């Protein structure tokens, strides 16, 4: 009996919801273009489920935050395909190359991130083509690994860090562009690109979240980049110096795209030997790096020699127990030249000499001073004995 009442209640509720939906009544904030009435359900913080893998998925949308985000003017259905049926059954994962029904003002064509996605797929982080897929594609970062749906914030860092700059500039925009919401969005869209989305330390953290994973890197023939943290560059980053070079400062300098990182043998890469001076000098960029960099200076290796050099010189690899290193060795043979190996050996030899020198010196000095201490104590004891004897 009770069950029947419950059923009737649920059917009634659903019917009421359906009627509400058909009326097109919006629960959403005025700021969100919720034409699909998605917030009818998704405004509830508890909405979610556990997926097949047992991972908790939260489907709550904070309408105010979403409205202030870079995608805040888009309707849900512009990106989320397959939402027509309720409850949803066949929702596809968001594809950032989807055309999202916005007109791109410079071409008047329908906008999508397809050009970025295509570049990305051709880069070192791309999954390869259907004919030539990369091994362990699941390791490679997707768009969302690096990109969150960032919030628009006031432009900061110039003339102090208050909102005053945004307010004053925006007031001038609104003078001509009278539709305030449009002006605000345009201003936010533009100024969003004028500031760093992540601090240098955050960039390093993001990149190292994969690149310090020895096992994952070894699967792709790449050495772990612990050696970056031996550089002066890292010291600047960890102290929070604004001019500090993080990963993208060198790997994606001015004129390059983060989505288009290429192997350093590729002439397009900023690390390609003939592009190095431009990269290190960073002429025209915000960061002041090595404006007087010469070919000799820029042609060298920035990260310290690591796993590859150790492998090629027959040294035992530390921290690689149980990790397949064949792919790294294969790449090491092409990545490191005879000159690199010579440099590595010289540096290693100097280090060894110093280790012996430091060890030997300290041992000798410590031993000498210990004997001296005992001798002084012995003498003091003798003198004390003589004094007591008197």
């Amino acid at each position: 009996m009770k069950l029947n009442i419950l059923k009737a209640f649920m059917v009634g509720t659903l019917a009421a919801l359906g009627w509400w939906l058909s009326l097109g009544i919006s629960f959403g904030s005025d700021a969100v273009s919720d034409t699909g009435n998605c917030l009818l359900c998704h405004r509830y913080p508890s909405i979610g489920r556990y997926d097949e893998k047992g991972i908790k998925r939260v489907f709550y949308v904070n309408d105010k935050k979403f409205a202030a985000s870079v995608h805040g003017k888009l309707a849900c259905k512009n990106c989320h395909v397959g939402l027509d049926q309720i409850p949803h059954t066949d929702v596809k994962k968001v594809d950032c190359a989807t055309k999202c029904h916005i007109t791109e003002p410079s071409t008047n064509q329908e906008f999508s991130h397809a050009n970025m996605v295509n570049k990305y797929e051709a880069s070192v982080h791309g999954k390869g083509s259907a004919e030539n897929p990369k091994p362990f594609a699941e390791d490679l970062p997707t768009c969302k690994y690096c990109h969150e749906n960032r919030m628009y914030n006031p432009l900061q860092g110039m003339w102090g860090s208050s909102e005053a700059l945004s307010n004053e500039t925006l007031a001038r925009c609104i003078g001509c562009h009278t539709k305030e919401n449009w002006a605000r969005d345009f201003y936010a869209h533009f100024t969003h690109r004028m500031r760093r989305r992540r601090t240098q330390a955050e960039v390093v953290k993001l990149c190292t979240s994969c690149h310090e994973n020895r096992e994952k890197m070894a699967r792709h023939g790449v050495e772990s980049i612990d050696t970056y943290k031996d550089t002066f560059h890292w010291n600047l980053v960890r102290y929070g110096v604004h001019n500090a070079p993080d990963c993208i400062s060198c790997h994606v300098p001015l004129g390059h795209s983060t989505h288009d990182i290429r192997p350093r043998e590729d002439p397009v890469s900023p690390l390609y030997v003939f592009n190095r001076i431009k990269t290190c000098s960073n002429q025209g960029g915000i960061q002041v790096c090595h404006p007087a960099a010469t070919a000799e200076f820029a042609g060298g290796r920035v990260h310290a020699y690591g796993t590859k050099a150790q492998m090629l010189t027959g040294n035992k690899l530390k921290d690689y127990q149980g990790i397949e290193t064949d792919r790294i060795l294969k790449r090491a043979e092409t990545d490191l030249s005879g000159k690199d190996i010579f440099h590595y050996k010289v540096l290693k030899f100097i280090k060894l000499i110093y280790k012996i020198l430091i060890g030997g010196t300290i041992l000798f000095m410590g031993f000498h001073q210990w004997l001296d201490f005992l001798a002084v104590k012995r003498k003091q004891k003798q003198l004390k004995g003589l004094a007591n004897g008197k």
Partner: protein
Amino acid sequence: MGNKALVLDGEGVPETESVRGKLFFVRLNYAERVQHMIFAVCFMVLVITGFMLKIPDSVVTYFGPFGEAVFSYRSLLHRTAGTIMIFVCFYHVYYLLLKAAGRRWLIDMLPRPKDLWDMRDNFLYYINLKKEPPEFDRFCYKHKIEYGALIAGTTIVSVTGLILWTEYNWSKFVVDIATLVHGMEAILACLAIMIWHFYEIHFRPHKFPLDKTWLTGVIDEEEMKEEYALHYKKIMNDPELQKIYTKREP
């Protein structure tokens, strides 16, 4: 004034003894003390600001939003102290070659075969196979080792430091070598100073807590006889040396 010689940690020294007119022996003259003072301050600044590049990330996070300012001052201080230290070295070379006291220092500091025998005999004394330590001249083998290490170390860190300062004029390989050598030499210098020099001036039982010669420049007769017996004899037998190396407290 001066330091106590090897006597019972100060016990048994007659308190009633007047120090008026007491004889003192000059170990460091004014110019040498000033050089030492500037060098020591620079050394400490260089060590602190240099090893700030090697401290763990967890310590760096304590600087929080002041990290950038801390780093800027660190860099400025390191370069300033390094520059001053190099100038002190140049002055020292000038002092050694063109000043009478400097030339005496240089001649007395030159290594001699006696230093080797002194070292052997001193070790024998340490292990109680000899009853008395050897009689040392103005500078003993310990001083000469330390002075030699100081010259070598300062030259190496200065040259590599200047290479790092002008890094873009060099190939990256040279910069890498300079970085490695600068750091390793700094570790060696620090440990040597801590174990060799700090022991001599702070932790030798009769010197604890501090040998004040670096400030006063003199030691008393008792210590002179005890530590530098040969030099003491030379001075006492030569009125010219007495003019240079002795002082009477008024």
